[in-house]
């Protein structure tokens, strides 16, 4: 009914009556004056439909007056000579008021229906849009954009932060920036009650701050600009804002629950991984311990019953199993250190040849007579690396090759410079990696399908990757076309190797290296 009381409506009604009067003036000679009343009635009905009740009544009164003055004899006076015209006047007025009221009512209903439809449509659109948003900030951005679009005002959304304040996540910073507005946002967050026009306005607060609540306070506030006090108090608008707030709150709640579910899921999986790890570790630790305990107790309790070779064998197995246990514990410690980040990589300039040589010397007892071919590019400079850690990489790779290729088949190490990196490739002549294992072999406790020997806990390659990555390098596994596996380590070469002063006064020249 916004337009019914406006001047425009009355002007329109007057215009219509004027038009009817003009038409009547033209037609008056050809028709009876009683027929002209029909024309005026039409005008009143049109006014009612177009402009509502008050203009319609105005039109009716005006019509009666003009009809009486212009067309009812005696003309150009308000006197009425025939009583039938009094009835006409009464009927005209009554019809005008009744149609006016009826049509106006219809109009109101239509307008309300339209408004409801618009509101439903925008709510539907918002809920649809929110349903596909996965994160808090996405939800709030979408909501704020749609609200400011729909209401034609500035809007913003803030969430509570760790320090008990509020952080803007979407929308127009301008409407929450001022001190009082900011305080109102924090207060709305804290108490879960709307603040600002029309819910009581502390000094300086002009916007409306709606806390978002879905069962529980979800810790977010929607701030909406208020163009003026009348609009701010408009119940339709408030209903709309409430409906929007509920939708957003529900979307946020859904998002939070999804996050919680995800966290729980991760925790369950971590737990499962940990228990697998524990059972794997305890098995790997207990096996050598069982062998040691068995052999040692046999030696202790069967003095004189076992011959010398038998005793030697038992002692030998104790010593071997102890060594195996020692390696396993070493690997576990190393892995833990790498994962906890305790290791600082202490890079210095090292000779790769020397590191490989030291690794081979340590592996001598395991390798026996197996050929290990080392080919290093002639121009290899000193390489920036942590020698203690990198020696482990080389050792683990050779150990791995030794374990997974037939005894006596050669293991090859090849090192070269490739652009700004050192590339070290370790290859064996074993069965190679199973399809899809190229990445998995670097997972801890993963043992390849053909891991026949029980020795090793599946940590060696995981340690390699940890150390190489701590150096800023990469390590990948692949199968060689000729058969067997190859592991390629790339270490970045940064900086210039330091120079070594030559010997000037030596009796013999420095040999070229």
């Amino acid at each position, binding site marked *: 009914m916004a337009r019914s009381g406006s001047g425009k409506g009355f002007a329109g009604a007057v215009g219509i009556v004027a038009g009817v009067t003009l038409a009547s003036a033209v037609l008056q000679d050809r028709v009876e004056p009683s027929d002209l009343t029909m024309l005026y009635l039409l005008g009143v009905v049109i006014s009612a439909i177009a402009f509502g009740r008050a203009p319609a009544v105005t039109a009716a009164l005006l019509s009666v007056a003009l009809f009486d003055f212009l067309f009812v004899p005696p003309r150009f006076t308000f006197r009425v000579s025939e009583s039938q015209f009094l009835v006409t006047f009464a009927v005209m007025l009554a019809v005008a008021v009744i149609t006016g009221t009826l049509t106006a009512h219809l109009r109101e209903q239509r307008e309300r229906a339209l408004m409801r439809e618009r509101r439903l449509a925008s709510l539907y659109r918002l809920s649809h849009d929110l349903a596909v948003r996965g994160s808090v900030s996405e939800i709030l951005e979408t909501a704020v954009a749609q609200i400011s679009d729909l209401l034609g005002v500035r809007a913003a959304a803030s969430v509570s932060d760790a320090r008990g304040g509020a952080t803007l996540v979407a929308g127009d910073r301008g409407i929450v920036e001022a001190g009082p507005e900011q305080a109102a946002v924090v207060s709305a967050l804290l108490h879960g009650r709307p603040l600002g026009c029309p819910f009581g306005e502390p000094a300086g607060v002009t916007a409306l701050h709606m806390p978002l609540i879905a069962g529980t306070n979800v810790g977010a506030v929607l701030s909406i600009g208020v163009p003026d006090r009348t609009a701010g108090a408009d119940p339709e608008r408030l209903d709309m804002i409430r409906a929007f707030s509920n939708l957003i709150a529900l979307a946020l709640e859904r998002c939070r629950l999804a996050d919680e579910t995800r966290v729980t899921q991760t925790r369950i999986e971590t737990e499962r991984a940990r228990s697998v790890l524990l059972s794997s570790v305890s098995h790997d630790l207990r096996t050598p311990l069982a062998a040691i305990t068995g052999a040692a107790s046999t030696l202790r309790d069967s003095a004189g019953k076992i011959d010398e070779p038998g005793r030697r064998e038992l002692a030998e197995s104790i*010593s071997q199993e*102890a*060594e195996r246990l*020692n390696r396993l514990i*070493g690997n576990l*410690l*190393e892995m833990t250190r790498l994962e906890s980040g305790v290791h600082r990589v202490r890079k*210095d*300039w*090292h*000779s790769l*040849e*020397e*590191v*490989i*040589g*030291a690794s*081979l*010397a340590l592996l001598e007892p395991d390798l026996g007579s197996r050929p*290990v071919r*080392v080919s*290093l590019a002639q121009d290899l400079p*000193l390489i920036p690396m942590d*020698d*203690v850690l990198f*020696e482990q990489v080389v050792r683990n790779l050779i150990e791995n090759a030794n374990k997974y290729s037939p005894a006596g088949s050669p293991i090859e190490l090849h090192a070269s410079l490739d652009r700004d990196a050192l590339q070290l490739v370790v290859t064996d002549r074993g069965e190679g990696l199973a399809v899809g294992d190229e990445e998995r072999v670097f997972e801890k406790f993963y043992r390849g399908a053909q891991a026949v020997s029980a020795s090793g806990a599946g940590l060696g390659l995981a340690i390699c990757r940890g150390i190489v990555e701590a150096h800023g390098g990469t390590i990948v596994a692949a199968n060689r076309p000729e058969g067997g596996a190859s592991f390629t380590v790339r270490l970045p070469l940064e900086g210039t*190797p*330091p120079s*070594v002063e030559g*010997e000037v*006064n*030596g*009796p*013999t*020249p*420095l*040999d070229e*290296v």
Partner: protein
Amino acid sequence: MSQSPGQDLGGGPSTSALVLVIEDETAIRRFLHAGLESEGYRSVEATTGQEGISQAATCSPDVILLDLGLPDMDGLTVVRRIREWSQTPIVVLTAREQESDKVQALDSGADDYVTKPFSMPELLARMRVVLRHRARVESETETVIVRGTLRIDLARRRVTVEGATVTLTPLEYRLLATLARHAGRVLTHKVLLQEVWGPSYTSQHHYLRVYMAQLRIKLEVDPGRPRLLMTETGVGYRLVEEAEG
């Protein structure tokens, strides 16, 4: 390392030598005792650093086995205290992984180390080296060191491989001679740099890497798999005590 005269060895064979074991773990003391006795060594034991230091003074041991992880005091402190008045060889028993501990122990005056867990033969080999070295310092007789095909004559400053003279630069020779004078023992980077290049070079580790590579090319059959000049990664270098084959 220290060149001052060592503790009195009585000139006798090292197998009758007295070993002081400073170790708090009963299980380790027990097997050390058994292992040492069976090799003809006599042994005395201490379970704390304090007790160890006083035993070192009262018993005049020929060699000391010192655990670095003692309950009452830091093993490094024990090394330094003993070194204040005694040159008795010290072999440190250390838990794995911490190369810096080994280096510190060696730089504090320990003669060598074994990493736990170690085997008895490994420990006995290390003890023999330090005892022989101590004897050598006293008698100053051994000036020719032979390892496989390599022969180093310290008196004549001559190095030969399979009888053929190898020409070394002065620094190469000094490096080799330093390792040879302490043959069988590990020398830390710091000690080697100080002995060969001088005190201002002790952090220039890359010098060692370059010169060791040069020495290996001239002396080793396969420089990539050295049999004579061994690397103790993170600690230092060692000229082997006995060349295999």
